[in-house]
């Protein structure tokens, strides 16, 4: 079920009503309702793949129970290995089998021993990269004794499949989300209203910004061979806002929806395009994934301790794995590696934590230096997004060489005329709102709160009208494919 569909607009009030009016007195019943609702939400897309979530939940629940009982270190390690193998096994098969099969075949062909490897017609189950990481974090935390293993099977299953964040995150840690399933949830008016506001802003980001930018970006990337440099740069710009609006919009809707049910999810985006360097960008972009890799991969590998070689190795590993997590294609690997290259100088010069707070703290506008560093960082990410969006490496390279050609100085021309100008204007207005609200959880968190109610409601009506009438053609959320 898509968040931006009528199906979800009907589904959400029904679940909300049952949750607060029918099951509110019994925590177990509430959790059961959330579990059933989550399975309906997921099964709406394809009920067959529900079995994967159920199986993964079973495995991690019993691994957790086993880890609670077992004191023998070898057996504990074996249990953890079972969880890792099952979860990464599913992920590996559904997401990476064809990639490895085809690349093996190509490698053998290059070595002069062509082999036949049949690729399979595999459908990637929606959200598999998200919920497998979420359950893995539970098993690892229990193994490291950072978390008490749960005895409440229902709460655990509801935690794994919690519908607001099931298919595209934020990837919650068991330490944050699971305990919320043990406690009675009380309805808090201000929290629910705030949740609705965040959902509205998320829908705006997705339907108005991302879907409109997608139309432009698709056209430019599909016809990139015939376009001039300035059009190609504009295409990368549109894609940058497509992916940001799409994914951060989804996260806003997920967080807002959770708040309607009394849950608090972690923040996933913190205005990343206002970052002053790449290190700051990665602290602000897809925070739940970045911190997952930091805690479960980077730090166990040694992190930034040790010598230069160790730092370089770990940085490349984490960024390349992160790229590969996004998709089984060399373009994602290069995207990861490129980000590692951007990040390394900062790490080696120990300047990776120089920009911790918000930009232009206490000021309306950034100073010249901040403006230059924000622009440079944005342009670097723009270049990297080309690899992320391109069909293959050849496409990405020809796209980038197209940008850096003499035709860059020509006027952009890709056949969208007035519509492109309208989308640019809307994107600029969006950036302005984001800038003004950059110290908040989301841009309009505090906008209009002190206004009189009719005026505030008029603003919400305005947003709804813009969503209804200026939205782009419905596109799937990009991160569903990961």
């Amino acid at each position, binding site marked *: 079920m898509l968040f931006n*569909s009528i199906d979800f607009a009907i589904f959400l009030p029904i679940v909300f009503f049952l949750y607060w*009016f029918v099951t509110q007195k019994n925590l177990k019943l509430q959790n059961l309702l959330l579990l059933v609702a989550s399975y309906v939400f997921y099964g709406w897309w394809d009920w067959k793949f529900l079995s994967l979530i159920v199986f993964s939940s079973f495995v991690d629940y019993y691994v957790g129970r086993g880890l609670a009982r077992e004191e023998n270190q070898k057996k504990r390690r074996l249990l953890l290995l079972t969880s890792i193998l099952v979860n990464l096994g599913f992920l590996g098969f559904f997401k990476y089998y064809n990639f490895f099969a085809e690349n093996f075949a190509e490698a053998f062909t290059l070595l002069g021993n062509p082999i036949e490897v049949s690729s399979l017609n595999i459908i990637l189950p929606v959200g598999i990269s998200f919920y497998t990481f979420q359950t893995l974090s539970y098993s690892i935390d229990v193994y490291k004794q950072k978390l008490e293993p749960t005895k409440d099977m229902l709460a655990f299953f509801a935690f794994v499949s919690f519908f607001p964040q099931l298919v595209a995150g934020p990837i919650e840690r068991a330490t944050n989300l699971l305990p919320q399933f043990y406690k009675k949830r009380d*309805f808090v*008016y201000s929290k*629910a209203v705030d949740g*609705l506001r965040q959902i509205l802003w998320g829908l705006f980001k997705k339907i108005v910004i991302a879907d409109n930018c997608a139309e432009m970006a698709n056209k430019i990337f599909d016809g990139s061979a015939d376009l001039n440099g300035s059009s190609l740069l504009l295409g990368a710009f549109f894609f940058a806002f497509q992916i940001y609006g799409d994914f951060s919009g989804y996260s806003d809707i997920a967080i807002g929806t959770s708040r309607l049910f009394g849950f608090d999810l972690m923040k996933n985006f913190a205005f990343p395009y206002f970052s002053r360097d790449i290190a700051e960008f990665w602290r602000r972009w897809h925070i739940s994934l970045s911190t997952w890799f930091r805690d479960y991969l980077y730090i166990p590998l040694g992190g930034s301790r040790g010598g230069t070689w160790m730092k370089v190795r770990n940085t490349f590993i984490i960024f390349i794995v992160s790229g590969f997590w996004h998709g089984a294609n060399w373009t994602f690997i290069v995207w990861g590696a490129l980000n590692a290259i951007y990040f390394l100088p900062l790490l080696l010069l120990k300047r990776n934590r120089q920009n911790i707070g918000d930009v232009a703290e206490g000021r309306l506008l950034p100073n010249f230096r901040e403006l230059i560093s924000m622009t440079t960082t944005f342009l670097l990410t723009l270049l990297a997004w080309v690899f992320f969006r391109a069909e293959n490496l050849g496409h990405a390279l020809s796209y980038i060489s197209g940008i850096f050609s003499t035709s860059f100085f020509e006027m952009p021309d890709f056949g969208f005329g007035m519509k492109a100008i309208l989308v640019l204007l809307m994107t600029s207005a969006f950036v302005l709102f984001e800038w003004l609200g950059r110290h908040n959880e989301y841009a309009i968190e505090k906008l209009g709160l002190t206004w009189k109610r009719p005026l505030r*409601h008029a603003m919400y009506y305005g947003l709804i009208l813009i969503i209804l009438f200026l939205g782009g*053609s*419905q596109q799937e959320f990009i991160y569903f494919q990961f």
Partner: protein
Amino acid sequence: MKIGSFIKRSLKFLGLFMILAILSLSLISASFEFLPHSKYYGQDYEKAFNNKDIGLLAIGNSKLLASLDNTTLQRELGLEPVNLGSIFSNLSVTRLTFESYLKNCKVMPKMVLMEVSWFTFNPVRTQFNEIGGDLFLNDYKLWSEAINYYPEIIDPLRKAFMRQVYSKVNYPQQIDYSSEFKNMSRFEKTYDFMLAEFEEVFPDHIAGIDPELLAEFERIVALCKDNNIKLVLYTGPEVSEYRSLQTDIEDIKTIFRNVPNVPYLDYSEGGEFFKKDYELWMKDSHHLNEPVLFSEILTKDIKSKLE
């Protein structure tokens, strides 16, 4: 504050919004007019839904738009014609157009001319397109069916609404479908068949028969029968490269041939009325560029078939 007041306030907010939405829709519907559009002949829709006593309705998709000339149809068949085709439209849109007209007309049309082809029942090549939104804004009686076309109806509806708003503020209007005809020779083939584009839509070279679209087709046939309207089906010319790739063409043509008491005129390869020369009149693999020439031939054949 309690959940009760949260729900009360939310309902109030939504209620007011719904009232405003219904008011705006009513306002737009009350002053609705079909506007020029590159994907159809807006003036023909306007004529049909305002005159309400049209003699010949031509319905279908872009192949119909490209193949007919109203002046020739009127001269040869003696019936006032309108061309209600639109690019990409599927049979649901075609049926809604026809049914909406029938519900609102003063006198039933005498004839319905419908272009059908290999992809008529294909849900990718044909879609619930933009004119669908205009139809719903023009005719409130169609709203009882809106849910059947969710979610594909949303985008056309939104665009139709915006077009109406734009027209009220003198936003530049589009040129109609006639701008799609090209200045090219009628004596030689001057276009290239794009296999890659074809395979993007039909990767297995199969158009298939979508059951819902088939049901819509049967409903059009039934509407004609119930209202005593003469239905004529035809398949316009197609170039041989395109025709040779249609793996399941015979399954689809069988449907058209077997409609009881409905003449089917087939101008594509293998059809009763096929001629190789028609290939020279095309602007691409399956769209004609010579509607006048083709309409002369089609009307002559209709007359002889009906005799």
